[in-house]
């Protein structure tokens, strides 16, 4: 029986200066790289495939299979791109990982690039996290100095350049094809697929794009074995994952556990809900995953469990809201986010999110008209699945799941402002005494 929590990626986060190469090596760091460099790249791809590592960036696509889609006969160079543009509301696991232990990612990058026959890897990190970028830059420099990156890595003849690249503020660049356009120095707007990046990605060359946590999981899989990894988790959702608990719990934080842990267990580990309050609703994996309620507390947090419950595992970003929270308010704020972050390329998304915001503002102000709920659903129906990427689908998920579980609050929005039904200051985490000066 596996323990409830299984720190692997988070195991060294409590160490003093865990970000330094010497401290990472002291814990066995870069041993997996030495082992990998003695294997054939194709065997490494099979190894990761057999471990059943599924992408940790939200979609859950098998990582090894993604690698195996690289064409064998394409004369162009292969690129490995790490998606470190963590921006999905609620998602906050890659940032602490890169800050605490950037070498876990860098070692994963080198192994993965070797497996994919790539000689240039990019870590595309969102720009709004200065200290994370500092530590990434330093870790890559240390890796070069130690002979883990650059020319003739550890005397094997394998060459790899690693470039840390800072974004400039655009959620859409977490979408893999928008990220590629951005990395090419353009506006970050999604591309039409096919062709998929494996065939025509960065500079129209074969490209693998993986999330930070996916790549960071690779060294452990190589070092400890594919069966070790597949020994954790549930039938189709294998391995360890970082679960991010935020919101109205006593002790929010990061919890690394086998896939399939339940929210009841996680909230219990987080000390329970804040004193005197109860769970109202939550997102299982960021704001793009439909909200769920207390009736889903015991559903396994794995890809299948969340799909059966009508949501998605996403990035395991569990945003917890208690009974003081207005669903209309949170839905509006999420949709405002999607409106703000829409790249403007596809009309249903650009115009549709704008219309959703206008309608939701009326609900928040208690000024919605009878029939506006149907209007929300109708507009959602005209947006969902009708754009190049899934950004607008996230807005639709927020709206339709909120109406599904809390229709009465939207009905109340025809007569009463949300801030009267749910006084906003009661939801704030700081004490009432701190609110005195708030006009």
């Amino acid at each position: 029986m596996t323990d409830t929590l299984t720190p692997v990626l988070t195991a060294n986060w409590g160490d003093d200066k865990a970000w330094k190469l010497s401290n990472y090596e002291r814990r066995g760091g870069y041993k997996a790289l030495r082992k990998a460099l003695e294997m054939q790249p194709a065997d490494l791809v099979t190894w990761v495939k057999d471990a059943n590592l599924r992408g940790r960036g939200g979609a859950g696509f098998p990582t090894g299979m993604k690698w195996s889609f690289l064409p064998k006969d394409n004369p162009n160079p292969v690129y490995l791109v790490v998606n470190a543009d963590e921006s999905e509301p609620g998602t906050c696991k890659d940032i602490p990982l890169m800050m605490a232990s950037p070498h876990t990612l860098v070692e994963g990058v080198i192994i993965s690039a070797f497996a994919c026959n790539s000689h240039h890897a990019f870590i595309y990190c969102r720009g709004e996290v200065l200290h994370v970028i500092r530590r990434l830059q330093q870790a890559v420099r240390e890796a070069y100095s130690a002979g883990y990156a650059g020319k003739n890595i550890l005397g094997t003849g394998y060459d790899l350049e690693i470039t840390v690249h800072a974004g400039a503020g655009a959620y859409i660049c977490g979408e893999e094809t928008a990220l590629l356009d951005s990395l090419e120095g353009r506006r970050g707007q999604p591309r039409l697929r096919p062709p998929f990046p494996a065939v025509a990605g960065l500079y129209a060359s074969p490209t693998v794009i993986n999330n930070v946590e996916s790549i960071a999981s690779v060294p452990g899989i190589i070092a400890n074995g594919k069966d070790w990894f597949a020994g954790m988790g549930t039938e189709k959702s294998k391995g360890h994952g970082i679960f991010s608990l935020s919101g109205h719990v006593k002790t929010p934080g990061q919890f690394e556990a086998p896939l399939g842990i339940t929210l009841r267990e996680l909230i219990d580990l987080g000390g329970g809900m804040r004193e005197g309050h109860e769970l109202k609703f939550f997102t299982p994996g960021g704001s793009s995953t439909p909200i769920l309620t207390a009736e889903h507390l015991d559903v396994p947090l794995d890809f299948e469990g969340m799909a059966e419950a009508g949501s998605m595992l996403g990035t395991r970003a569990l945003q917890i809201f208690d009974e003081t929270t207005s669903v209309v308010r949170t839905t509006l704020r999420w949709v405002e986010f999607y409106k703000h972050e829409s790249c403007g390329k596809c009309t249903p998304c650009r115009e549709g999110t704008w219309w959703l915001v206008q309608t939701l503002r009326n609900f928040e102000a208690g000024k919605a008209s009878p029939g506006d709920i149907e209007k929300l659903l109708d507009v959602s129906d005209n947006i969902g699945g009708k754009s190049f990427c899934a950004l607008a689908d996230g807005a639709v998920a927020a709206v339709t799941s909120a109406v599904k579980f809390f229709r009465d609050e939207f009905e109340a929005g025809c007569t009463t402002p949300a801030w009267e039904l749910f006084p906003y200051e009661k939801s704030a985490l700081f004490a009432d005494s701190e609110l005195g000066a708030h006009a």
Partner: protein
Amino acid sequence: MSGHEFQSHFENSGSIDMDDTSTNIDETTMDELRQLAARYPQKRSALLPMLHLVQSVDGRVSPAGIQACADVLEISTAQVSGVATFYTMYKRRPAGKHHVGVCTTALCAVMGGDILLDRVQAKLGIGENETTPDGKISLERLECNAACDFAPVMMVNWEFMDHMTPAKADELLDKLLNDEEVHSTRGARITSWREAERVLAGFPDGLADEGPTAGDSSLVGLRIAQQRGWKAPTAEQAPVEQAGSEQASSGEETK
């Protein structure tokens, strides 16, 4: 001036200010821009870092900076402007010495971010995307900054200020306004927005070793696992060599 005019309120605030042609870009800057371009297989990939560098030199995306990027990359100024106006981190008007952000995406907003933003605006006498008349602080309403377990969150020059309260926000702003030393709750000592932009461009400032390994919230699960003796399985359970199985338990006791 009453001292409360909004310095960066322009009628045409959506576009880059092309009237102010002042610039600090010199040959050193041009050399650095060319260095950035040389780091990539195709030089246009350097445009985002180059625009960060332009901001570190000119305090905003300046017309001269746009021209410099276009010259180095051999693309048109319209292509550069098109990119510069797409991304929120590029400022079309001068940002303050310190750039303060308050996260108001759903979770932070509900946890107190809305109250914090009101408070900060009232204290500074400026609104979103505006700069104090003395040029010390510019303010931005942020979308999710990936620190939800530390909510509500503020940022200063893209360094984390975690678990904020109105009182902590007041103290933070007072210190910034008085040029006192400020530290991120899990980062380095605060430098300036321009210095931060230089790091983002790809020129390190040597502060990577400041601050803790992780913030308190990041460690909640790990601490519980350590207290209860919970660990990931060892490699022995797999039919391959034992490697890294000691990883989870060494280190921690040695510090």
